[in-house]
Every structure is written in C-alpha cells, then in structure tokens.
C-alpha cells in the first residue's frame, strides 16, 4: 500500500508539473498571469480530438498540429490583446480570464459534451511496479515530463533565444538596452506557455475524457502549484508539485478522498503566511514591499 501510494504520488506530482510549467514559464518571463491557461489546455485537447476523429489524421500528427495551433493562438492572444494592457496586472488578469471563459463556454455552446470526447492512450499496457499495477500512459507521462523539463533547461541555458528569455525575466529594462525586443519575447513566452499547456493536454487527457470543466481545474492546479513554488520559478514549480502531489495522494490513502481538494488550498494558505513569495519566489518579501 505504501509503495503504491508513493508510485501514484510521484505520477500525480509529475502531472501537476506538466499542468503548471507553461503557466509558470509565461509568468516568469513576461510577467503575464495567463488565466486562459486551462482553456488553452482544453482547446488543445478538443483540436486533437477533431483532427483525429473528424479529419482522420494519425494521432501523433493530430497532437503535433494541435500543439502548434495552440501555441499560435497564444501568440495571437498576446499580440492583439495582452500587448495593449501589458503591465496593468488587473487588466491582464481580467483579459486572460475573459478569453479563457470565452474559449471554454464556446465549446460548451457548440455541444462538446459527452463521453465520446476522449483521446486514446499511446500504449495500452500495464506494468507491475512493486506490488502495484501502473499503466504505460502514466509511465509515459513521467518520462515525457522528465524529457520536457530537461529540454526546457537546455533551451533557456544554451540557446540565444533562451538566454534572451532569461534576460527579459531577470531585468527587462537592462535587456532592452542590449537590443532585446521585450514584446517579441513576451509574445513567444505566452506562445510557449500555451504550447506547453497543449503538450500537457495531449499526454494527460488519455487518462480520462475531455470535459470543459477540466479547464478550470487545470487553472486552479497551475495557480496553486505556482503560488506555492514561487511565481516564475521552475525549480519552485517542481518542488511544489512534489509537495502537493504527495500530500494529495497520502491524504487520499490515509485520511480520506474528500480531503484531497483541501490539501492544495491549505498549502497555499500556509505558504502565503510563512513565505508570501512562495518557496522559491524571487518577488520581494512582504516586509520589503512595505
């Protein structure tokens, strides 16, 4: 039982990392809180479904096109809406949340409701780890997340564009003096974040079905993990995902399933009280701000 709980806690944590890494990347670079993040996740899932079942494309092609499409929508979102309100935090939140609502409710309005909206698993096998069965899709989630995080690290540390990302994230004004186009980088950061949401959707959705309401759950999870880890910190997201992921599964196993939803909220409260900027957040501490 303990081993099984640990195995599923690791998987749960990795799912949380996948769900939140795009949101965190966008905030870390451009400072934009993309509240349409959950909607973009669902958009990607439905686009993959449509390409797969309505157009008849192969699964991998559908997933790839869906990721590119979602990333493109993210870029458009920044260029045509967010750029106009950049720097006005409340306006950014309202604008992105509005876009997210519009996307999700549009799918609901179109009638994308029902069990037929599901994506197939990549490999339909189960393996025994210790004394517990784990399906291949979950193992793939863990492997692909590890690869994704590694590629992301390589990108931001060893490519000129990635270094520009870091430059803007560290000090936008100084980066501007070096000729970096902050709007272009911000466009890319929102686009990358949307693309990462799409990658997460195509890997995670096969575990269940596609439902519009999941968009809100994904946003809440991404927010919870990012706040606990410290907005903008990739390391923080990973640590926070492990903390929340393990807490949820252990609560589920040893206390009761209905308490799992409360775990993330309690974690947010505790972190906000003890360390308002999050575990690895680089924002100023409360006492410094006042």
């Amino acid at each position: 039982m303990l081993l099984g709980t640990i195995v599923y806690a690791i998987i749960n944590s990795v799912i949380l990392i996948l769900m939140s890494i795009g949101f965190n990347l966008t905030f870390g670079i451009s400072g934009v809180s993309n509240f349409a993040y959950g909607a973009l996740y669902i958009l990607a899932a439905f686009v993959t479904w449509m390409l797969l079942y309505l157009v008849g494309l192969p699964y991998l092609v559908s997933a790839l096109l869906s990721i590119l499409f979602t990333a493109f929508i993210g870029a458009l979102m920044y260029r045509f809406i967010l750029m106009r309100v950049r720097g006005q935090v409340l306006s950014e939140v309202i604008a992105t949340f509005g876009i997210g609502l519009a996307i999700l409710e549009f799918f609901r309005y179109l009638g994308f409701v029902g069990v037929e909206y599901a994506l197939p698993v990549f490999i339909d096998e189960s393996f025994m780890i210790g004394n517990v069965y784990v399906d291949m899709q979950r193992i793939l989630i863990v492997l692909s997340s590890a690869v994704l995080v590694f590629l992301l690290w390589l990108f931001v540390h060893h490519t000129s564009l990635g270094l520009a990302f870091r430059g803007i994230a560290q000090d936008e004004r100084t980066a501007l003096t070096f000729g970096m186009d902050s709007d272009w980088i911000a466009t890319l950061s929102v686009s990358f974040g949307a693309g990462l949401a799409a990658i997460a959707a195509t890997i995670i959705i096969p575990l269940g079905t596609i439902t519009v309401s999941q968009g809100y759950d994904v946003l809440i999870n991404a927010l919870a993990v990012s706040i606990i880890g410290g907005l903008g910190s990739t390391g923080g997201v990973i640590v926070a995902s492990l903390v929340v992921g393990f807490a949820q599964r252990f609560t589920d196993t040893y206390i009761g399933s209905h308490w799992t939803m409360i775990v993330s909220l309690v974690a947010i409260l505790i972190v906000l009280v003890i360390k308002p900027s999050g575990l690895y957040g680089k924002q100023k501490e409360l006492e410094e701000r006042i």
Partner: protein
Amino acid sequence: MKRRFGVGCLFLVLGIVFSFSAYAADPIVIGVPTSTGFVEGKEGLAIVEMAVADINAKGGVKVGSEQRMLKVESIDIRDAAPGVPVPEALMGIEKLILEKKPAALLIGPFRSEALLAAMDILAKYKVPMLGTIAMTPASEGKIKQEPDKYKYVFRTCLNAKYLVSYLVGIMSFANKEFGFNKVYIMHQDVAWARATADGMVKNYFEKAGWTVLGQESYPTGASDFSSGLMKARSNGAQVILPIFDMPQSGTLVKQWKSMKVPALMAGFISPLAGPGAWKTFDKKIGGAINCNFELGSAIASKKVPPSVDFLKAYEKKFGKAMEAGHGPGPTWESVYILKEAIERAGSLDPDALVAEIKKTDRTGVMGRIKFDDGHQAIFGMDPKEAAVACVFQWNDKGERVNVFPESIADSKIKLPEGLKSAK
C-alpha cells in the same frame, strides 16, 4: 395597372398573415432549466425539443377549445459543475420563470441540494416542475410535510431509494450466485450518491452479512482513484460499488482496468451508460455492470417496445446514439405527461395542472408511470406495473446485455475474465 395589382396582392397577403397571427393562440412555453453543459442535460434538452416537435407536428396541445403549439425555452443553470454555488442555479430558474413565463418546467436541477432550494421558488411562483435528474428523497418528504406549498414538484426519474433497490438486486445475485460478500464502496460526494451509498450499507450490506471494506467519497471533479482501488485490492474486495454521475468518473473505469483490480465493478458510473463507452474506454470494459436509472435512458428492452422505438427515433433524428443513462427516458415521458395533463385540465392553471399530473397513469418508454404521495414516479421490477430501471452488463463483444430486473433481463450476470467465484 400591373403595379397596382401587385401592391394590392402584397397588402392582401400581409393582411392574411397578420389576421392569422392576431388570432393564433400564443404557444405554451415549457421551461427547461438544467445543466446543459453535461450530457444528461444536453440530451435531455434535445429530447424535450424532439418531443415538442413531435407534438406540434400533430397539431399541438388542446387547451379547452383551442389548439396551441408548444415552445421550449431553456437556460443553463450549471449546477452540475463543480464549485457552482446553489444560489447561481436558483437565479437561473427564477430568471427563466420571470422572463419566459413557462407553464411548467422540465428536467430541472442536477444537484439535489439545488432541487431542495428550488422548491421554494417553484412554490412562490406556482410553477409545476417535472424533474428528471435530481434524486434525493428529501424532496418527497418536503412535499408530504407541506403538500399545499410544495405540490408543484414532481419527479419522473427514479430516486435514491429506488436506486438502492436495484443495486440490492445486483448484490443479492452476486452473493447468491458467486458467494461474494466483501464490498468496497466508492461514491461521489453529493447528496444523492451519499444517500445511495448509506442506504446500501444500512438496508442491505449490514443485514445480509456483507463486509464493507471501505467507503470512499470523492469530491465532484476528482480524477484519480488509484488510492481507493489500491485499498480495494489490498483488502480483498470482491465487488466494487461505484456511484458517480460526473464525467471524470470515466477515469475510474480506466484505472480499474489498468490496475487489474480483481473485483466485479457493479454500480453506476455515468460515462459507462451509453454505447459510446465501448470506444471511449478502448474496448476494455467487458464485465462491468451498470445500472441505467431508467429504461429508455440510453438502454432499451425488446420486452418494452416503446423503449426500442424511442432510441431508434433519437438516433435517426440526431445521427448518433443516446449516451445518458439518467434522464432521457423520463424527460420524454414528462413532455407527454404534461401534454396530457394540460388537455385533461383544459387550462394552464398551475393548481389544475398539478391535480391532473397527479392522476397520470400512462405506459411508455420506462414502463407504467404513476405518481405516489410524494409526487415520485413509482418504480418497480415489472414494466407492466411500474416504471423500471435497467441494469446491464458489458460483454467482451461490446454489447450491453440486460441482466436486471428479471422481467426485462436477457441473461444472467457473468463474471469477467480473471475473476473467480467464491463458491
């Protein structure tokens, strides 16, 4: 001359059109306040529209001496979505009543909590409602306590008590036939599911000598059931009793299969109800047993021909099979119950309508429908005597085989591959 003639003809046509519209009676508005973003609400609304089109094509409803058409007005009250507060659903219902002036409401809230709160609004505006989703027996208690106030609320679908009786039927069979007596209960943390799970423990498992290994409640929206399934496996559960109506519960079936839990999955998981589940769950649900709450709700029986005709008509009209295992059957019947009540009452007076709805005795897709003192449709085991639910088992060919009640069963429950009888 030609021009004058043309203008004259135009005025004549317009005159005829306007005179007809002046004399034509206004349509009778049927309100549908429900969660249209969920498959039960979406298909329910489609079925109301299908029934209304059917009735209107045959000349509409006779109210006293005049023939009137029906018109559907709907609103998405979103109460089925996790986190949506009950007051938001109530605002939607009140808005529909005040703005569209419906003669009656159909389908109604999903959540029992919302239904109980909505009963006061229906009493305030005196609007009859034939509910087809929310299942708490508490609404019947309120009607029995204050019949004059709450008489406007009827329920055409089954309630949690009746659901318990069908689930007891399955468990009794599993006990008698295979010697199973260890159960693990997994249910959604909502009123009807809690009531059903508690009812099963008190009314059956404790009395019949079963061991309840655990009872887990999951918040609406939960999508990881691994801990519960591990507990079921490690404790040696022979039967898992799931009670869920949220779309995410499909994950439970996938995890049950992928984690190879050696226990019979028998209960209610809404995504398992319709034929589409076979494809959705990668053809790996053979052996799972599901109780569709009403005959006609995505499941039919050759022994009740109207149920077969109903599903065929739905598929023909919408080009795809029905998927909701709760709501469609009673929703179809509710439109006709309302039509017949209006015609018998000869008016749209809510008190007269309520009196006539109470007298309902019709046989349709669910079997025979009559209401009891709590305005609940009476469910039983024989469609000739009462309305019936339908328990079916998925076989390995992707077919749904009716297994309970006996009156509509085509086969007995069979153990899925890898699961052995305890006898």
